[in-house]
């Protein structure tokens, strides 16, 4: 085990996979000469050369198309979106092509590619650069979608995504890229620890219990799983024991883990960073109510961002997505019911 930041775990995953498999290459804007906009691929160009670190024009549809074709021909492209918001001009390539090729050609091709990049709200990037777009990718058979919330999963899920034979979207939680190991461990001891084994991967489609508890189950993913841990710390001070389930993968979605937890706690709070309406939290809340109908002692509580484009001003931005106090309040509502 090594203690590291989330961003370093991403770098490590990419490094290990590019060294392991000669078919892996990275393509995107500023990934090579510039070392990556936030330097996830720092030093890679020098080390691995221009065939494996490919700088591109600002042409997202071209980048994804390059990835799809290369994947069909047997390579393992990792397409970086400078921010995941910029995948939208390439959404047709992702949703109509990468996702559907295997099925519509009756299984003749595989599309083992990764589309990855920083996601979510940080520091006043405003409406067009703050989104957490998982729902758009999850509502699309043929894709897989992962949302690592910890340094270990940043490494493990990214590696598993690269090794997977399908198009996998990796939404990297920018908000927590630069937390230092001691900040992680302060939230929960051991949270900054990342297995050094280059064969370590986090299997796709397996949720994890990040913290055990008995009074209520908090279900979330990405940055908000960490917000839930923070909320659980606050709740513990009040004697409320919250179990925190981090979904890790949204597609495939492991509902067995949260449902097992709810069987124990009888109360569920679903937390997501962005718009609740028609968001991923809706599916999770719906499945809980549909499948754990007789286990629930209270209505599922959903906590989500305001249904507005992200405002710029810090004063408003702070109000636009949930924090640990919002989660605590939802837990109290869940506990008050019935």
């Amino acid at each position: 085990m090594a203690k590291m930041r989330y961003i370093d775990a991403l770098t490590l995953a990419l490094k290990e996979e590019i060294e392991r498999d000669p078919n892996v290459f990275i393509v995107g804007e500023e990934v090579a000469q510039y070392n990556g906009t936030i330097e996830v691929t720092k030093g890679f160009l020098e080390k691995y050369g221009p065939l494996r670190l490919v700088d591109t024009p600002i042409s997202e549809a071209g980048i994804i198309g390059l990835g799809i074709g290369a994947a069909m021909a047997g390579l393992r492209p990792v397409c970086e979106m400078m921010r995941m918001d910029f995948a939208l001009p390439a959404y047709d390539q992702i949703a109509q092509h990468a996702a559907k090729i295997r099925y519509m050609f009756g299984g003749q091709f595989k599309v083992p590619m990764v589309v990855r990049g920083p996601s979510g709200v940080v520091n006043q990037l405003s409406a067009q650069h703050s989104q957490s777009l998982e729902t758009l990718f999850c509502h699309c058979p043929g894709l897989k979608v992962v949302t690592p919330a910890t340094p270990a999963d940043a490494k493990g899920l990214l590696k598993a995504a690269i090794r997977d034979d399908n198009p996998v979207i990796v939404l990297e939680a920018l908000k927590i890229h630069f937390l230092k190991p001691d900040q992680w461990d302060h939230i929960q001891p051991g949270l900054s620890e990342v297995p050094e084994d280059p064969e370590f991967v986090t299997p796709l489609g397996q949720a994890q219990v990040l913290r055990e508890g008995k009074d209520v189950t908090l279900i979330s993913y990405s940055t908000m799983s960490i917000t839930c841990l923070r909320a659980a710390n606050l709740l513990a001070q009040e004697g409320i024991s919250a179990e925190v389930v981090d979904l890790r993968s949204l597609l495939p979605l492991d509902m067995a883990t949260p449902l097992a937890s709810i069987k124990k706690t009888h109360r569920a709070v679903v937390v997501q960073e962005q718009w609740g309406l028609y968001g991923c939290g809706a599916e999770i809340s719906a499945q809980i109510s549909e499948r754990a109908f007789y286990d629930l002692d209270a209505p599922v509580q959903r906590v989500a961002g305001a249904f507005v484009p992200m405002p710029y001003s810090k004063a408003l931005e702070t109000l636009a997505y949930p924090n640990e106090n919002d989660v605590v309040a939802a837990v109290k509502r869940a506990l008050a019911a019935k």
Partner: protein
Amino acid sequence: MAKGTAEAPATEAGDAEISANTVTEKPFDREKYRRFYEQMVHIREFEELCAVAFKKGTHGIGGYLHLYSGEEAIACGIIGALDRSKGDCFIGHYRDHGYALAAGSDPNEVMAEICGKATGCSKGKGGSMHICDAARGFYGGYGIVGGNVPIALGLGWALKYKKLDGVCVCFFGDGSMNQGGFHETLNMAQLYRVPVLFVLENNGYAMGTSIERSHANPNLASRVESYAMKYDTIDGQNIVTVHERATEIVEEMRRNPAPFFLECKTYRYHGHGAADEAKQTVYRSREEIEQAKQRDPLVIAERLLLEQGAINDEEIERIRKEALAAAEASLKFSDESPNPSPDELLKDVYA
């Protein structure tokens, strides 16, 4: 070979072009062109039978059915210039039956796919627009206009990455050129010197929209100067022209990897899709269609082969008959094939 201009579409090109003088110095390969001719006749009969079967409505063909009749020389001449052993491959749009047949895919499987049968090349899941043949390097037909073009970039990239001598051919229509992805792709292809041969099947129309009504610069091939890409325009109705030029270009691409843009002037005989047959006169005259048919690629090939003594009238008759019989056999194969079984519904979503 002259660069084409919008003022001289295939329909109006002089008959002079048809005769053997488009044949260059190379000795005429009778066997090869006879084979191409047979292929073209087969594609024609195959598709005309599809049109009939579509109308009948009892063979399982639904949705869209885009026929290639009139454009056969392009697929045959160009795919016939490829060498699978070198890694050559190709990808197309939804007007895709001809590509597969030109590549030697099993016509029964193609027909069964068009009819949505379990024995289809895509297991009946794709249909007419989504024919493919991985073994023959056919990376499929795509239904979103321009959607296949960025993918071709990746196929070409893989050839470069693997240091193979192969080329990837990307077929698309004039309408595709106004999609954003086309633009992004051509720039990147040239930037990376990726060996993709972009083949524009310029049949004058995108559905009911003529070139002049959709391209501010109707001289389509010249549009790729925007990417500093090499290009040429040829008569897509003449199999010899198409094949020889494609062969030259492919050889050059193997020597000096870089993309190339080849515009083939051609004409579509049917409506945009089989269901649009009746709406044709909204955008073009019956006379225009008849005139275009004067330069039918099959007839042009026939004349050339006759001139060269590579075929006689009797053989022509026999080839047609055999092609029709083959098409009918394919339809029979399809008719006798089972539908996909219900458990196929959930298969092939993920690898």
